[in-house]
Protein backbone atom coordinates (compact mmCIF):
# COMPACT_ATOMS: atom_id res chain seq x y z
CA UNK A 1 0.00 0.00 0.00
CA UNK A 2 2.78 2.38 0.86
CA UNK A 3 4.26 1.81 -2.56
CA UNK A 4 0.90 2.41 -4.16
CA UNK A 5 0.42 5.64 -2.36
CA UNK A 6 3.76 7.03 -3.37
CA UNK A 7 3.05 5.88 -6.91
CA UNK A 8 0.35 8.48 -7.01
CA UNK A 9 2.74 11.35 -7.14
CA UNK A 10 3.98 10.71 -10.68
CA UNK A 11 0.36 10.00 -11.58
CA UNK A 12 -0.55 13.41 -10.28
CA UNK A 13 2.12 15.02 -12.38
CA UNK A 14 0.84 13.23 -15.46
CA UNK A 15 -2.71 14.29 -14.75
CA UNK A 16 -1.70 17.86 -14.27
CA UNK A 17 0.30 17.83 -17.48
CA UNK A 18 -2.69 16.41 -19.30
CA UNK A 19 -5.02 18.97 -17.83
CA UNK A 20 -2.71 21.79 -18.75
CA UNK A 21 -2.80 20.96 -22.46
CA UNK A 22 -4.31 23.35 -24.90
CA UNK A 23 -6.45 20.57 -26.28
CA UNK A 24 -9.85 21.48 -24.81
CA UNK A 25 -11.60 18.14 -25.40
CA UNK A 26 -9.28 15.25 -24.76
CA UNK A 27 -10.70 11.75 -25.01
CA UNK A 28 -12.94 10.78 -22.14
CA UNK A 29 -10.64 8.02 -20.90
CA UNK A 30 -7.73 10.37 -20.94
CA UNK A 31 -9.57 13.00 -18.95
CA UNK A 32 -10.29 10.34 -16.42
CA UNK A 33 -6.81 8.93 -16.26
CA UNK A 34 -6.09 10.62 -12.96
CA UNK A 35 -9.25 9.30 -11.39
CA UNK A 36 -8.60 5.82 -12.72
CA UNK A 37 -5.06 5.73 -11.40
CA UNK A 38 -6.23 7.10 -8.08
CA UNK A 39 -8.76 4.32 -7.79
CA UNK A 40 -6.24 1.56 -8.44
CA UNK A 41 -5.44 0.96 -4.76
CA UNK A 42 -9.15 0.77 -4.02
CA UNK A 43 -9.57 -1.76 -6.79
CA UNK A 44 -6.66 -3.85 -5.59
CA UNK A 45 -7.96 -3.86 -2.02
CA UNK A 46 -11.48 -4.72 -3.03
CA UNK A 47 -10.48 -7.55 -5.31
CA UNK A 48 -7.67 -9.07 -3.28
CA UNK A 49 -8.88 -8.54 0.26
CA UNK A 50 -12.63 -8.07 0.27
CA UNK A 51 -13.76 -10.14 -2.68
CA UNK A 52 -11.02 -12.70 -2.14
CA UNK A 53 -11.76 -13.17 1.54
CA UNK A 54 -15.51 -13.25 0.97
CA UNK A 55 -15.17 -16.00 -1.61
CA UNK A 56 -12.77 -17.84 0.67
CA UNK A 57 -15.32 -17.62 3.48
CA UNK A 58 -18.13 -18.91 1.31
CA UNK A 59 -15.93 -21.74 0.06
CA UNK A 60 -15.03 -22.87 3.57
CA UNK A 61 -18.67 -22.89 4.60
CA UNK A 62 -19.04 -25.94 2.34
CA UNK A 63 -16.11 -27.70 3.96
CA UNK A 64 -15.65 -29.66 7.16
CA UNK A 65 -12.89 -27.36 8.48
CA UNK A 66 -12.31 -27.57 12.21
CA UNK A 67 -9.27 -25.87 13.77
CA UNK A 68 -7.49 -25.21 10.46
CA UNK A 69 -9.06 -24.42 7.10
CA UNK A 70 -9.29 -27.41 4.77
CA UNK A 71 -10.63 -27.41 1.24
CA UNK A 72 -12.72 -30.57 1.28
CA UNK A 73 -16.39 -30.78 0.29
CA UNK A 74 -19.04 -31.29 2.94
CA UNK A 75 -22.03 -30.10 0.96
CA UNK A 76 -24.70 -28.30 2.91
CA UNK A 77 -23.90 -30.09 6.15
CA UNK A 78 -22.86 -26.92 8.00
CA UNK A 79 -25.95 -25.07 6.86
CA UNK A 80 -28.15 -27.96 7.97
CA UNK A 81 -26.63 -27.77 11.43
CA UNK A 82 -26.82 -23.99 11.46
CA UNK A 83 -30.54 -23.86 10.78
CA UNK A 84 -31.27 -26.57 13.32
CA UNK A 85 -29.42 -24.54 15.96
CA UNK A 86 -31.70 -22.73 18.41
CA UNK A 87 -28.93 -20.42 19.42
CA UNK A 88 -28.30 -19.18 15.89
CA UNK A 89 -31.99 -18.59 15.26
CA UNK A 90 -32.37 -16.70 18.51
CA UNK A 91 -29.26 -14.69 17.61
CA UNK A 92 -30.92 -13.60 14.38
CA UNK A 93 -34.00 -12.39 16.22
CA UNK A 94 -31.90 -10.62 18.83
CA UNK A 95 -29.86 -8.75 16.28
CA UNK A 96 -33.07 -7.59 14.60
CA UNK A 97 -34.44 -6.15 17.83
CA UNK A 98 -31.11 -4.67 18.78
CA UNK A 99 -30.52 -3.23 15.32
CA UNK A 100 -33.79 -1.34 15.06
CA UNK A 101 -33.67 0.09 18.58
CA UNK A 102 -29.97 0.83 18.53
CA UNK A 103 -29.87 2.58 15.17
CA UNK A 104 -33.09 4.47 15.84
CA UNK A 105 -32.00 5.40 19.35
CA UNK A 106 -28.55 6.55 18.33
CA UNK A 107 -29.82 8.65 15.43
CA UNK A 108 -32.49 10.41 17.48
CA UNK A 109 -30.33 10.91 20.54
CA UNK A 110 -27.27 11.83 18.49
CA UNK A 111 -29.25 14.37 16.47
CA UNK A 112 -30.71 15.90 19.62
CA UNK A 113 -27.27 16.16 21.17
CA UNK A 114 -25.90 17.79 18.04
CA UNK A 115 -28.75 20.30 17.89
CA UNK A 116 -28.56 21.20 21.56
CA UNK A 117 -24.80 21.51 21.53
CA UNK A 118 -25.20 23.77 18.49
CA UNK A 119 -26.97 26.38 20.64
CA UNK A 120 -23.80 28.31 21.49
CA UNK A 121 -23.54 26.63 24.84
CA UNK A 122 -20.73 27.15 27.28
CA UNK A 123 -18.02 24.52 27.60
CA UNK A 124 -18.95 23.01 24.28
CA UNK A 125 -15.58 21.26 24.00
CA UNK A 126 -15.99 19.58 27.36
CA UNK A 127 -19.52 18.47 26.61
CA UNK A 128 -18.56 17.13 23.22
CA UNK A 129 -15.71 15.15 24.76
CA UNK A 130 -18.05 13.80 27.43
CA UNK A 131 -20.48 12.58 24.80
CA UNK A 132 -17.71 11.02 22.77
CA UNK A 133 -15.63 9.46 25.51
CA UNK A 134 -17.39 6.07 25.67
CA UNK A 135 -16.19 5.58 22.13
CA UNK A 136 -12.60 5.91 23.27
CA UNK A 137 -12.61 3.20 25.90
CA UNK A 138 -12.16 -0.49 25.68
CA UNK A 139 -15.51 -2.21 25.99
CA UNK A 140 -14.00 -4.99 28.06
CA UNK A 141 -13.94 -2.73 31.08
CA UNK A 142 -16.72 -0.23 30.35
CA UNK A 143 -18.92 -3.27 29.70
CA UNK A 144 -17.97 -4.54 33.14
CA UNK A 145 -18.91 -1.18 34.66
CA UNK A 146 -22.30 -1.45 32.97
CA UNK A 147 -22.66 -5.04 34.12
CA UNK A 148 -22.08 -3.96 37.70
CA UNK A 149 -24.39 -0.98 37.45
CA UNK A 150 -27.24 -3.02 36.00
CA UNK A 151 -26.67 -5.96 38.32
CA UNK A 152 -29.57 -6.05 40.80
CA UNK A 153 -27.35 -6.95 43.77
CA UNK A 154 -24.67 -4.34 43.08
CA UNK A 155 -25.97 -1.39 41.12
CA UNK A 156 -29.02 0.75 40.59
CA UNK A 157 -31.58 -1.60 42.15
CA UNK A 158 -29.52 -1.98 45.30
CA UNK A 159 -28.90 1.76 45.48
CA UNK A 160 -32.57 2.68 45.24
CA UNK A 161 -33.55 -0.05 47.68
CA UNK A 162 -30.95 1.18 50.15
CA UNK A 163 -32.59 4.58 49.93
CA UNK A 164 -35.73 3.03 51.34
CA UNK A 165 -37.70 1.91 48.29
CA UNK A 166 -37.70 -1.78 49.14
CA UNK A 167 -39.87 -2.80 46.19
CA UNK A 168 -37.89 -1.10 43.47
CA UNK A 169 -36.90 -3.60 40.82
CA UNK A 170 -34.53 -3.13 37.91
CA UNK A 171 -33.18 -6.50 36.95
CA UNK A 172 -33.25 -6.46 33.16
CA UNK A 173 -29.73 -7.77 32.80
CA UNK A 174 -30.59 -11.02 34.59
CA UNK A 175 -34.01 -11.32 32.96
CA UNK A 176 -34.09 -13.38 29.79
CA UNK A 177 -36.89 -11.32 28.25
CA UNK A 178 -35.33 -7.95 28.97
CA UNK A 179 -31.59 -8.51 28.72
CA UNK A 180 -31.40 -7.47 25.06
CA UNK A 181 -32.62 -3.98 26.04
CA UNK A 182 -29.72 -3.54 28.43
CA UNK A 183 -27.44 -4.11 25.46
CA UNK A 184 -29.37 -1.44 23.58
CA UNK A 185 -28.88 1.03 26.45
CA UNK A 186 -25.15 0.42 26.67
CA UNK A 187 -24.88 0.44 22.88
CA UNK A 188 -26.56 3.83 22.62
CA UNK A 189 -24.33 5.07 25.39
CA UNK A 190 -21.33 3.94 23.42
CA UNK A 191 -22.22 5.11 19.92
CA UNK A 192 -24.52 8.13 20.04
CA UNK A 193 -21.64 10.51 20.72
CA UNK A 194 -20.18 9.59 17.37
CA UNK A 195 -23.49 10.26 15.64
CA UNK A 196 -23.49 13.60 17.41
CA UNK A 197 -20.03 14.39 16.03
CA UNK A 198 -20.94 13.43 12.46
CA UNK A 199 -24.20 15.37 12.47
CA UNK A 200 -22.60 18.33 14.18
CA UNK A 201 -19.99 18.46 11.44
CA UNK A 202 -22.90 18.53 9.01
CA UNK A 203 -24.84 21.22 10.87
CA UNK A 204 -21.77 23.42 11.05
CA UNK A 205 -21.61 23.28 7.30
CA UNK A 206 -25.14 24.57 6.75
CA UNK A 207 -25.12 28.03 5.18
CA UNK A 208 -25.54 30.82 7.71
CA UNK A 209 -27.81 32.66 5.25
CA UNK A 210 -30.38 29.89 5.54
CA UNK A 211 -30.60 30.39 9.30
CA UNK A 212 -30.96 34.11 8.80
CA UNK A 213 -33.70 33.60 6.25
CA UNK A 214 -35.52 31.23 8.58
CA UNK A 215 -35.30 33.76 11.37
CA UNK A 216 -36.60 36.56 9.18
CA UNK A 217 -39.52 34.38 8.16
CA UNK A 218 -40.27 33.68 11.81
CA UNK A 219 -39.83 29.93 11.52
CA UNK A 220 -39.33 28.42 15.00
CA UNK A 221 -35.92 26.98 15.72
CA UNK A 222 -37.06 23.36 16.04
CA UNK A 223 -38.76 23.54 12.64
CA UNK A 224 -35.70 25.10 11.07
CA UNK A 225 -33.63 22.16 12.28
CA UNK A 226 -36.14 19.52 11.26
CA UNK A 227 -37.29 20.78 7.89
CA UNK A 228 -34.33 22.84 6.68
CA UNK A 229 -31.15 21.53 8.28
CA UNK A 230 -31.99 17.83 8.48
CA UNK A 231 -32.64 17.35 4.75
CA UNK A 232 -29.45 19.26 3.99
CA UNK A 233 -27.34 16.95 6.10
CA UNK A 234 -28.98 13.88 4.58
CA UNK A 235 -25.70 12.36 3.35
CA UNK A 236 -24.26 12.66 6.86
CA UNK A 237 -27.29 10.86 8.24
CA UNK A 238 -26.73 8.10 5.70
CA UNK A 239 -23.07 7.86 6.71
CA UNK A 240 -24.01 7.63 10.38
CA UNK A 241 -26.64 5.00 9.65
CA UNK A 242 -24.23 2.81 7.71
CA UNK A 243 -21.65 3.16 10.47
CA UNK A 244 -24.20 2.10 13.06
CA UNK A 245 -25.42 -0.76 10.89
CA UNK A 246 -21.87 -2.09 10.62
CA UNK A 247 -21.62 -1.96 14.40
CA UNK A 248 -24.90 -3.85 14.73
CA UNK A 249 -23.85 -6.67 12.46
CA UNK A 250 -20.47 -6.94 14.17
CA UNK A 251 -21.87 -6.63 17.70
CA UNK A 252 -19.65 -8.83 19.85
CA UNK A 253 -17.43 -7.09 22.41
CA UNK A 254 -20.29 -5.48 24.24
CA UNK A 255 -22.14 -8.77 24.62
CA UNK A 256 -19.07 -10.60 25.84
CA UNK A 257 -18.26 -7.88 28.34
CA UNK A 258 -21.79 -7.47 29.69
CA UNK A 259 -23.68 -10.76 29.48
CA UNK A 260 -21.62 -13.47 27.78
CA UNK A 261 -24.74 -14.13 25.76
CA UNK A 262 -26.75 -14.93 28.87
CA UNK A 263 -28.74 -15.50 30.97
CA UNK A 264 -28.76 -18.84 29.21
CA UNK A 265 -28.58 -17.95 25.52
CA UNK A 266 -30.98 -15.02 25.80
CA UNK A 267 -28.60 -12.33 24.53
CA UNK A 268 -26.63 -14.28 21.94
CA UNK A 269 -25.86 -12.50 18.66
CA UNK A 270 -24.65 -13.77 15.26
CA UNK A 271 -21.14 -12.32 15.41
CA UNK A 272 -20.60 -14.04 18.74
CA UNK A 273 -21.79 -17.29 17.22
CA UNK A 274 -19.20 -16.86 14.46
CA UNK A 275 -16.42 -15.97 16.88
CA UNK A 276 -17.16 -18.76 19.35
CA UNK A 277 -17.07 -21.36 16.60
CA UNK A 278 -14.15 -19.83 14.75
CA UNK A 279 -11.87 -19.84 17.76
CA UNK A 280 -12.94 -21.48 20.99
CA UNK A 281 -14.96 -24.28 19.43
CA UNK A 282 -12.56 -24.98 16.58
CA UNK A 283 -15.27 -25.27 13.97
CA UNK A 284 -14.33 -23.05 11.05
CA UNK A 285 -16.87 -24.76 8.80
CA UNK A 286 -19.84 -23.82 10.93
CA UNK A 287 -18.41 -20.38 11.70
CA UNK A 288 -17.98 -19.54 8.02
CA UNK A 289 -21.46 -20.87 7.25
CA UNK A 290 -22.85 -18.44 9.83
CA UNK A 291 -20.67 -15.63 8.44
CA UNK A 292 -21.92 -16.41 4.95
CA UNK A 293 -25.52 -16.18 6.13
CA UNK A 294 -24.74 -12.81 7.70
CA UNK A 295 -23.18 -11.64 4.45
CA UNK A 296 -26.12 -12.85 2.38
CA UNK A 297 -28.54 -11.03 4.67
CA UNK A 298 -26.52 -7.83 4.54
CA UNK A 299 -26.27 -7.97 0.76
CA UNK A 300 -29.99 -8.66 0.45
CA UNK A 301 -30.72 -5.57 2.53
CA UNK A 302 -28.04 -3.37 0.97
CA UNK A 303 -28.17 -4.45 -2.65
CA UNK A 304 -31.28 -2.54 -3.76
CA UNK A 305 -30.02 0.54 -2.00
CA UNK A 306 -26.46 0.32 -3.33
CA UNK A 307 -27.79 -0.41 -6.80
CA UNK A 308 -30.14 2.55 -6.79
CA UNK A 309 -27.69 4.97 -5.30
CA UNK A 310 -24.30 4.04 -6.58
CA UNK A 311 -24.44 1.71 -9.53
CA UNK A 312 -27.34 2.79 -11.68
CA UNK A 313 -26.36 6.42 -11.54
CA UNK A 314 -22.87 6.12 -12.83
CA UNK A 315 -21.78 9.51 -11.71
CA UNK A 316 -22.63 11.85 -8.94
CA UNK A 317 -25.67 11.29 -6.88
CA UNK A 318 -28.47 13.62 -7.96
Amino acid at each position, binding site marked *: MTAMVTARIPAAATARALAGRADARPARWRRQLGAKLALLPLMAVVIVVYLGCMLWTVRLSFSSSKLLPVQDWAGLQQYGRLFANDRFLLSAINIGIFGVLFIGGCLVFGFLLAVFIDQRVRAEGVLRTVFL*FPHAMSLVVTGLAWQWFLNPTLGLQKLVRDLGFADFTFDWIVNQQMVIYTLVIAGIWQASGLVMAILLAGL*RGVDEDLWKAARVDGIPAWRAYLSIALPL*IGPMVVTATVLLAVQVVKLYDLVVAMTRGGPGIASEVPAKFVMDHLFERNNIGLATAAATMMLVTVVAILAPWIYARYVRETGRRA
Partner: protein
Amino acid sequence: MMAPMTADMPSGRRPRRIGIARIGVYAFLLSSAAFFLLPLWIMVTTSLKPMAEVWEGNILALPAQFTVEPWIRAWSEACTGLECNGISVGFWNSVRILIPSLVLSILAGAVNGYALSFWRVRGANLLFGILLAGAFIPYQVFLYPLVRLFSQAGIYNSLACIVIVHVVFGMPIMTLLFRNFYASLPVELFNAARIDGGGFWTIFTHVLLPMSTPIIVVATILQVTGIWNDFIFGLTFAGRENLPMTVQLNNIVNSTQGERAYNIDMAATILTALVPLAVYFLSGRWFVRGIAAGAVKG
Protein backbone atom coordinates in the same frame (compact mmCIF):
# COMPACT_ATOMS: atom_id res chain seq x y z
CA MET B 1 -27.44 22.52 -1.46
CA MET B 2 -24.99 22.92 1.30
CA ALA B 3 -22.88 25.99 0.85
CA PRO B 4 -19.71 26.74 2.73
CA MET B 5 -20.00 29.02 5.67
CA THR B 6 -18.92 32.57 5.44
CA ALA B 7 -18.88 33.50 9.10
CA ASP B 8 -16.42 32.49 11.74
CA MET B 9 -19.24 31.27 13.96
CA PRO B 10 -21.27 28.22 14.84
CA SER B 11 -24.25 27.80 12.61
CA GLY B 12 -26.74 27.56 15.44
CA ARG B 13 -29.32 30.23 15.97
CA ARG B 14 -28.44 32.93 18.36
CA PRO B 15 -30.22 32.70 21.68
CA ARG B 16 -32.75 35.47 21.81
CA ARG B 17 -33.04 35.63 25.55
CA ILE B 18 -31.96 33.83 28.66
CA GLY B 19 -35.15 32.11 29.59
CA ILE B 20 -36.90 28.83 29.84
CA ALA B 21 -35.53 27.66 26.51
CA ARG B 22 -31.99 28.30 27.67
CA ILE B 23 -32.58 26.42 30.90
CA GLY B 24 -34.09 23.59 28.90
CA VAL B 25 -31.02 23.39 26.68
CA TYR B 26 -28.70 23.10 29.64
CA ALA B 27 -30.99 20.70 31.48
CA PHE B 28 -30.98 18.37 28.49
CA LEU B 29 -27.24 18.59 27.95
CA LEU B 30 -26.38 18.15 31.61
CA SER B 31 -28.68 15.18 32.13
CA SER B 32 -27.27 13.61 28.98
CA ALA B 33 -23.79 14.22 30.32
CA ALA B 34 -24.79 12.50 33.56
CA PHE B 35 -25.95 9.46 31.59
CA PHE B 36 -22.65 9.36 29.72
CA LEU B 37 -20.56 9.81 32.83
CA LEU B 38 -22.28 7.20 34.96
CA PRO B 39 -20.07 4.22 34.04
CA LEU B 40 -17.05 6.50 34.22
CA TRP B 41 -18.03 7.36 37.79
CA ILE B 42 -18.00 3.66 38.67
CA MET B 43 -14.65 3.24 36.98
CA VAL B 44 -13.01 6.24 38.60
CA THR B 45 -14.24 5.50 42.11
CA THR B 46 -13.26 1.85 41.79
CA SER B 47 -9.81 2.81 40.58
CA LEU B 48 -9.27 4.91 43.69
CA LYS B 49 -10.20 2.20 46.19
CA PRO B 50 -8.01 -0.52 47.66
CA MET B 51 -9.16 -4.00 46.64
CA ALA B 52 -10.51 -4.78 50.11
CA GLU B 53 -13.08 -2.07 49.52
CA VAL B 54 -13.83 -3.20 45.98
CA TRP B 55 -14.62 -6.71 47.21
CA GLU B 56 -17.29 -5.21 49.48
CA GLY B 57 -19.22 -4.38 46.36
CA ASN B 58 -20.43 -0.80 46.99
CA ILE B 59 -19.72 0.16 43.43
CA LEU B 60 -21.28 3.61 43.48
CA ALA B 61 -19.81 4.75 46.77
CA LEU B 62 -16.89 7.13 47.04
CA PRO B 63 -13.67 5.55 48.28
CA ALA B 64 -13.55 5.39 52.06
CA GLN B 65 -9.82 4.92 51.86
CA PHE B 66 -8.50 6.94 48.96
CA THR B 67 -5.52 5.57 47.06
CA VAL B 68 -3.78 6.44 43.81
CA GLU B 69 -1.62 3.35 43.90
CA PRO B 70 -3.72 1.48 41.32
CA TRP B 71 -2.98 4.25 38.82
CA ILE B 72 0.75 4.06 39.38
CA ARG B 73 0.67 0.29 39.18
CA ALA B 74 -1.46 0.33 36.04
CA TRP B 75 0.91 2.68 34.27
CA SER B 76 4.25 1.22 35.20
CA GLU B 77 4.16 -1.70 37.63
CA ALA B 78 1.33 -4.09 36.88
CA CYS B 79 2.35 -7.52 35.66
CA THR B 80 1.42 -8.47 32.14
CA GLY B 81 3.32 -11.74 31.93
CA LEU B 82 6.95 -12.08 32.86
CA GLU B 83 7.36 -8.33 32.70
CA CYS B 84 5.82 -6.11 35.34
CA ASN B 85 6.00 -2.70 33.70
CA GLY B 86 2.34 -1.84 33.34
CA ILE B 87 0.75 -0.53 30.17
CA SER B 88 3.39 2.11 29.47
CA VAL B 89 5.42 -0.51 27.58
CA GLY B 90 3.42 -0.45 24.39
CA PHE B 91 2.68 3.28 24.31
CA TRP B 92 5.25 4.25 21.68
CA ASN B 93 4.45 1.19 19.62
CA SER B 94 0.85 2.32 19.52
CA VAL B 95 1.95 5.79 18.42
CA ARG B 96 4.16 4.32 15.72
CA ILE B 97 1.25 2.27 14.42
CA LEU B 98 -1.27 5.06 14.77
CA ILE B 99 0.37 7.87 12.85
CA PRO B 100 1.09 6.23 9.48
CA SER B 101 -2.16 4.26 9.61
CA LEU B 102 -4.14 7.39 10.37
CA VAL B 103 -2.58 9.53 7.67
CA LEU B 104 -2.69 6.87 4.98
CA SER B 105 -6.22 5.69 5.69
CA ILE B 106 -7.63 9.22 5.68
CA LEU B 107 -5.73 10.06 2.52
CA ALA B 108 -6.96 6.91 0.83
CA GLY B 109 -10.53 7.60 1.95
CA ALA B 110 -10.38 11.20 0.72
CA VAL B 111 -8.98 10.30 -2.69
CA ASN B 112 -11.43 7.42 -3.12
CA GLY B 113 -14.36 9.53 -2.00
CA TYR B 114 -13.36 12.35 -4.33
CA ALA B 115 -12.84 10.05 -7.33
CA LEU B 116 -16.12 8.29 -6.68
CA SER B 117 -18.24 11.37 -6.24
CA PHE B 118 -16.91 13.71 -8.94
CA TRP B 119 -15.50 11.46 -11.67
CA ARG B 120 -17.55 9.02 -13.67
CA VAL B 121 -15.28 6.03 -13.71
CA ARG B 122 -17.01 2.97 -15.07
CA GLY B 123 -17.38 0.16 -12.54
CA ALA B 124 -16.07 2.23 -9.66
CA ASN B 125 -19.37 2.26 -7.88
CA LEU B 126 -19.64 -1.50 -8.10
CA LEU B 127 -16.26 -1.73 -6.39
CA PHE B 128 -17.54 0.62 -3.76
CA GLY B 129 -20.62 -1.54 -3.26
CA ILE B 130 -18.49 -4.62 -2.65
CA LEU B 131 -16.26 -2.67 -0.30
CA LEU B 132 -19.26 -1.53 1.67
CA ALA B 133 -20.71 -5.03 1.90
CA GLY B 134 -17.32 -6.28 3.06
CA ALA B 135 -17.41 -3.87 5.97
CA PHE B 136 -20.19 -5.93 7.50
CA ILE B 137 -18.29 -9.18 7.82
CA PRO B 138 -16.67 -9.76 11.21
CA TYR B 139 -13.06 -9.21 10.28
CA GLN B 140 -11.91 -12.09 12.46
CA VAL B 141 -13.09 -14.30 9.60
CA PHE B 142 -10.45 -12.64 7.40
CA LEU B 143 -7.54 -13.36 9.71
CA TYR B 144 -6.43 -16.70 8.28
CA PRO B 145 -6.34 -15.77 4.59
CA LEU B 146 -4.67 -12.45 5.40
CA VAL B 147 -1.99 -14.10 7.50
CA ARG B 148 -1.19 -16.38 4.57
CA LEU B 149 -1.27 -13.52 2.11
CA PHE B 150 1.11 -11.35 4.13
CA SER B 151 3.35 -14.25 4.93
CA GLN B 152 3.71 -15.00 1.22
CA ALA B 153 4.41 -11.34 0.57
CA GLY B 154 7.13 -11.56 3.20
CA ILE B 155 5.90 -8.74 5.40
CA TYR B 156 3.93 -10.74 7.98
CA ASN B 157 4.58 -9.52 11.53
CA SER B 158 5.98 -6.09 10.73
CA LEU B 159 5.04 -2.47 11.16
CA ALA B 160 4.23 -2.19 7.44
CA CYS B 161 1.90 -5.16 7.75
CA ILE B 162 -0.18 -3.70 10.58
CA VAL B 163 -0.35 -0.32 8.84
CA ILE B 164 -1.64 -1.93 5.65
CA VAL B 165 -4.22 -3.86 7.63
CA HIS B 166 -5.50 -0.68 9.27
CA VAL B 167 -5.66 1.14 5.94
CA VAL B 168 -7.48 -1.77 4.30
CA PHE B 169 -10.04 -2.20 7.06
CA GLY B 170 -10.52 1.53 7.43
CA MET B 171 -11.17 1.90 3.74
CA PRO B 172 -14.92 1.17 3.57
CA ILE B 173 -15.92 3.68 6.21
CA MET B 174 -13.35 6.30 5.24
CA THR B 175 -14.42 6.12 1.60
CA LEU B 176 -18.08 6.29 2.52
CA LEU B 177 -17.48 9.25 4.81
CA PHE B 178 -15.66 11.33 2.21
CA ARG B 179 -17.83 10.19 -0.67
CA ASN B 180 -20.98 11.32 1.09
CA PHE B 181 -19.40 14.53 2.25
CA TYR B 182 -18.28 15.47 -1.25
CA ALA B 183 -21.66 14.45 -2.60
CA SER B 184 -23.21 17.17 -0.48
CA LEU B 185 -20.96 19.89 -1.89
CA PRO B 186 -22.29 21.99 -4.80
CA VAL B 187 -21.33 20.44 -8.11
CA GLU B 188 -20.87 23.93 -9.59
CA LEU B 189 -17.74 24.22 -7.52
CA PHE B 190 -16.26 21.25 -9.31
CA ASN B 191 -17.48 22.28 -12.75
CA ALA B 192 -16.00 25.74 -12.39
CA ALA B 193 -12.64 24.22 -11.53
CA ARG B 194 -12.85 21.89 -14.48
CA ILE B 195 -13.55 24.76 -16.84
CA ASP B 196 -10.56 26.59 -15.40
CA GLY B 197 -8.52 23.65 -16.66
CA GLY B 198 -7.93 21.95 -13.34
CA GLY B 199 -6.88 18.31 -13.53
CA PHE B 200 -7.78 15.50 -11.18
CA TRP B 201 -5.15 16.22 -8.56
CA THR B 202 -5.22 20.01 -8.91
CA ILE B 203 -8.91 20.15 -8.14
CA PHE B 204 -8.44 17.75 -5.25
CA THR B 205 -5.57 19.56 -3.59
CA HIS B 206 -6.61 23.12 -4.36
CA VAL B 207 -10.37 23.08 -4.16
CA LEU B 208 -11.68 20.08 -2.25
CA LEU B 209 -9.06 19.29 0.36
CA PRO B 210 -9.16 22.79 1.88
CA MET B 211 -12.92 22.42 2.31
CA SER B 212 -12.69 19.03 3.91
CA THR B 213 -11.66 20.06 7.41
CA PRO B 214 -14.85 19.06 9.23
CA ILE B 215 -14.97 15.65 7.63
CA ILE B 216 -11.27 15.11 8.22
CA VAL B 217 -11.92 15.83 11.88
CA VAL B 218 -14.67 13.23 11.96
CA ALA B 219 -12.48 10.77 10.08
CA THR B 220 -9.66 11.41 12.55
CA ILE B 221 -11.94 10.78 15.49
CA LEU B 222 -13.11 7.52 13.96
CA GLN B 223 -9.69 6.26 12.96
CA VAL B 224 -7.81 7.32 16.08
CA THR B 225 -10.41 5.49 18.13
CA GLY B 226 -10.41 2.40 15.95
CA ILE B 227 -6.66 2.12 15.50
CA TRP B 228 -5.70 3.04 19.04
CA ASN B 229 -8.17 0.58 20.58
CA ASP B 230 -7.47 -2.21 18.14
CA PHE B 231 -6.28 -5.37 19.79
CA ILE B 232 -6.79 -8.31 17.47
CA PHE B 233 -5.06 -6.85 14.38
CA GLY B 234 -2.13 -5.57 16.39
CA LEU B 235 -1.77 -8.93 18.06
CA THR B 236 -2.00 -10.87 14.82
CA PHE B 237 -0.08 -8.72 12.35
CA ALA B 238 2.24 -6.32 14.17
CA GLY B 239 4.83 -8.79 15.36
CA ARG B 240 6.35 -9.13 18.80
CA GLU B 241 8.44 -5.96 18.63
CA ASN B 242 5.53 -3.72 17.63
CA LEU B 243 2.74 -4.90 19.88
CA PRO B 244 0.41 -2.02 20.72
CA MET B 245 -0.53 -0.87 24.20
CA THR B 246 -3.88 -2.65 24.04
CA VAL B 247 -2.10 -5.99 24.26
CA GLN B 248 -0.78 -4.96 27.67
CA LEU B 249 -4.20 -3.61 28.60
CA ASN B 250 -5.79 -6.89 27.62
CA ASN B 251 -3.19 -8.74 29.66
CA ILE B 252 -4.17 -6.73 32.70
CA VAL B 253 -7.94 -6.85 32.36
CA ASN B 254 -8.61 -10.14 30.61
CA SER B 255 -6.87 -12.89 32.50
CA THR B 256 -9.18 -15.91 32.64
CA GLN B 257 -7.94 -17.76 35.68
CA GLY B 258 -5.83 -15.14 37.38
CA GLU B 259 -6.94 -13.05 40.34
CA ARG B 260 -8.33 -9.69 39.28
CA ALA B 261 -7.36 -6.31 40.62
CA TYR B 262 -10.35 -4.35 39.41
CA ASN B 263 -8.97 -1.04 40.63
CA ILE B 264 -5.93 -1.48 38.38
CA ASP B 265 -8.15 -2.68 35.51
CA MET B 266 -10.19 0.50 35.67
CA ALA B 267 -7.17 2.79 35.93
CA ALA B 268 -5.44 1.03 33.04
CA THR B 269 -8.51 1.40 30.85
CA ILE B 270 -8.84 5.11 31.52
CA LEU B 271 -5.12 5.66 30.96
CA THR B 272 -5.20 3.83 27.65
CA ALA B 273 -8.10 5.98 26.49
CA LEU B 274 -6.29 9.26 27.15
CA VAL B 275 -4.89 9.62 23.64
CA PRO B 276 -8.25 9.35 21.84
CA LEU B 277 -9.79 11.55 24.52
CA ALA B 278 -7.18 14.22 23.92
CA VAL B 279 -7.86 14.02 20.20
CA TYR B 280 -11.60 14.45 20.80
CA PHE B 281 -11.03 17.43 23.00
CA LEU B 282 -8.51 19.15 20.75
CA SER B 283 -10.48 18.44 17.60
CA GLY B 284 -13.14 20.78 18.94
CA ARG B 285 -11.48 23.91 17.59
CA TRP B 286 -11.83 22.66 14.03
CA PHE B 287 -15.46 21.81 14.46
CA VAL B 288 -16.07 25.52 14.27
CA ARG B 289 -13.20 27.34 12.73
CA GLY B 290 -12.02 24.82 10.20
CA ILE B 291 -15.02 25.33 8.04
CA ALA B 292 -14.66 29.07 8.00
CA ALA B 293 -10.93 28.86 7.32
CA GLY B 294 -11.48 26.51 4.43
CA ALA B 295 -14.46 28.38 3.03
CA VAL B 296 -14.41 29.01 -0.66
CA LYS B 297 -16.81 31.46 -2.16
CA GLY B 298 -18.76 29.24 -4.49
